[in-house]
C-alpha cells in the first residue's frame, strides 16, 4: 500500500512515539517495583530508587521466603486455582454440552435460567447468608463453589458445542456408544481449544481471588495470596521477629521493600504463564464475540 504525503509520515512518527511512550507507561511501573524490591530500605525511604536497584540487596526476598504465612497463602491460592479451575471446566461443560444438543428438550428454558442471572444479580447480603447457612464460612469451597459456572463462559462453550458437527455424534451412536461415552471420547477431545481458553480465564480469576475471600474467609491461616498481599500493602509496620537476627536491619524500618518483593512474588506466576495466556485469550475473545 502506498503511503500518501509528508503529513502521513509525520503522523507515523508521532504515532510511534506516542504508542512507545504508552507502552513504557504500562511497563515502567514493573521496573520500578523490581528496582525497589532489590534496593536497601535506606535507599527506598530516601526516595533514591527509580528504575535501577540502589544499594542492591536480596534481603526483602529472603524475608518473604522465610515467612511461613506467605508460603501458606501461596499454597492456598495454588490449591484453589488448580481445583477450582477443574471444577469450573467440568461444571460448565456438563451444562453447556447437553444444552447444545438438539435432543435436549427445554434447552431454551436452561438458557433463560442462565441469562437472567447475567442481567439481574442478587445483592451481597443474601449471598452471604446463603454461604453462611450452607456452612461454607471459612471453607475454601466458599471461594470455588459460588463461581463454579460463569454465565458468560457458559455461553462461550455453548456456542462452541453448537458448532460441532452432529454427524460425529450420530456416528458415535451408530457405533453403539452411550451418551456418556460420546461425551467423553468424541466431544471432550474435540473441545480441547475451548477448554484451554476458558481454563486459562478461570485460572487467572482464581489466582486473583480477593473479594470472595474478603466476604467469606476470616481466619488468617486460610487467606489466599491476594488477601495476604493486601494486608501487607496497607500495613505501615511489618512485625519482624526480633529473634531472627538475619533480618534485624528490617526491624523498625519502612517495609516498602518487603511489599514490593511480595508484589513480585504474586505477579511472577502470571508473567510466567503470560505467553501461554496470550496465545489463548485472543482466541477466547473471538469465540465470545461471535456470540454477541
Amino acid at each position, binding site marked *: 500500500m502506498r503511503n500518501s504525503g509528508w503529513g502521513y509520515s509525520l503522523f507515523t512518527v508521532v504515532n510511534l512515539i506516542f504508542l512507545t511512550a504508552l507502552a513504557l507507561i504500562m511497563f515502567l511501573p514493573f521496573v520500578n517495583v523490581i528496582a525497589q524490591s532489590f534496593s536497601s530500605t535506606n535507599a527506598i525511604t530516601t526516595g533514591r530508587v527509580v528504575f535501577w536497584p540502589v544499594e542492591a540487596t536480596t534481603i526483602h526476598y529472603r524475608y518473604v521466603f522465610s515467612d511461613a504465612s506467605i508460603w501458606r497463602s501461596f499454597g492456598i491460592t495454588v490449591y484453589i486455582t488448580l481445583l477450582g479451575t477443574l471444577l469450573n471446566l467440568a461444571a460448565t461443560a456438563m451444562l453447556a454440552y447437553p444444552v447444545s444438543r438438539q*435432543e435436549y428438550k427445554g434447552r431454551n428454558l436452561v438458557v433463560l435460567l442462565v441469562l437472567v442471572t447475567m442481567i439481574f444479580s442478587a445483592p451481597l447480603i443474601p449471598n452471604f447468608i446463603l454461604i453462611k447457612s450452607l456452612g461454607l464460612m471459612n471453607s475454601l469451597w466458599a471461594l470455588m463453589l459460588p463461581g463454579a459456572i460463569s454465565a458468560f463462559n457458559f455461553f462461550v462453550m455453548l456456542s462452541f458445542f453448537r458448532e460441532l458437527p452432529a454427524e460425529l455424534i450420530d456416528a458415535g451412536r451408530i457405533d453403539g456408544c452411550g*451418551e456418556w461415552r460420546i461425551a467423553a471420547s468424541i466431544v471432550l477431545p474435540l473441545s480441547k481449544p475451548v477448554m484451554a481458553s476458558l481454563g486459562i480465564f478461570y485460572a487467572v480469576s482464581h489466582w486473583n481471588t480477593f473479594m470472595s475471600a474478603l466476604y467469606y474467609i476470616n481466619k488468617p491461616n486460610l487467606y489466599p495470596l491476594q488477601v495476604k498481599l493486601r494486608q501487607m500493602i496497607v500495613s505501615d509496620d511489618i512485625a519482624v521477629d526480633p529473634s531472627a537476627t538475619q533480618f534485624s536491619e528490617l526491624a523498625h524500618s519502612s517495609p516498602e521493600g518487603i511489599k514490593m518483593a511480595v508484589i513480585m512474588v504474586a505477579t511472577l506466576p502470571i508473567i510466567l504463564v503470560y505467553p501461554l495466556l*496470550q496465545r489463548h485469550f485472543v482466541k477466547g475473545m473471538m469465540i465470545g464475540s461471535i456470540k454477541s
Partner: protein
Amino acid sequence: MAVKAEAAPVRARRSGSAGIGRWIWKYRALYLMSLPGIVFFLVFKYIPLAGSVIAFQNYNIFSGIAGSEWVGLEHFRTMFAHYDFLRILNNTLLIGLYDVVFAFPAPIVLALLLNEVRKVVYKRLLQTVVYMPHFLSWVIVSGIAIGIFSPSTGAVNHLLGWFGIEPIYFLGEESYIRSILIGSGIWRDSGYGTIIYLAAIAGINPELYEAAEVDGANRWRQTLAITLPALLPTITILFLLHIGRFLDFGFERVLVFLNPLNVAKGEILDTYIYQQGLLQQQYSYTTAMGLFKSVIGLVLVLIGNFLSKKTTGSGLY
C-alpha cells in the same frame, strides 16, 4: 418408530406429558449431565435472589426470613433520606460517568493507532506489552500504584521533584481519588480492550481501502470513511453493554484504593454495602441498597437492549 426418532430427533416432537416423560427418559444421560449445573444456578444464583426479600424486613439472623418482621419500604425511605447514601450515589454516578467518557473510548483510539503501525514485529511487541496489565489483580495494581505515587518513596514524585514540584500525596487527597480510579482502569484494561476492535478492523475488506486509495483518499480520510463506520456496530454493542453496567464500576478496584483520607469522594455503593452490610451487619438496609442498584441495572440493560434493536437491528440478548 424408535428408529425414525433416532434418525430425525428434531422432527420427532410429540405432544402430551407422557411423550415428554418418555423423551427425557430416553435422553436421561443428557439430562443427568446437566443436573449439577442447573442445581448450581438455582442454589447459588436464585436462592440469593429470593433471599433479597430481606430488604423489606428487619432481618434478624437468628429468626431467619420466616421469623423476621416485615417493614415494607421503610429501608428504601430511610435510604433516600440519608445524606450518606446520596453522597455515595453521587460518587457512584460520577465515577460511572467518568468511566464512560474517558475509559470507554480509550481502547477504540488505541486500536486505531495500533492499526496504523505498519511494522508487524513492533506492533506485536506493543500489543504484548499493553495487554499484560489486564491479568494483574486489583490488589497488585493498587500495590504498584501506592508504591509509585507514594510521596516519600514513589517514582512519580521523584520525577516531579526534577521540575521543582513539591511531593504530592496523590492517594491521601480526596481530589485525586476519582482520577486514580479511572486512570488505573485505563492503565490495566484499555490495551486488552483493543483486541475486539482490532479483530473487527482485521475483518474489513481490504478492497475498500484500495478503492479509496485510487480515489485519492489519504489514511486519515480512509479511517474516517471506512474504518470507523465498520467499527460502529461493535462500538454500539459494547457501549450498550457498558451502560448496562453503569453502576457496577467494581468493588475490588475501588476498595483497594480507599483509605480514610480519600474515602469521602472515592466510596461507591458496592464498597459502602460491604462496609455497612457485612462489617456493620446492617443486613436489611444494605440489601435494600443492593436491590435498588440491581433494579437500576436491569432498567439500563432493558433500555440498552431496546436501543440496540432500534439502531443495529439486533438485540444484545
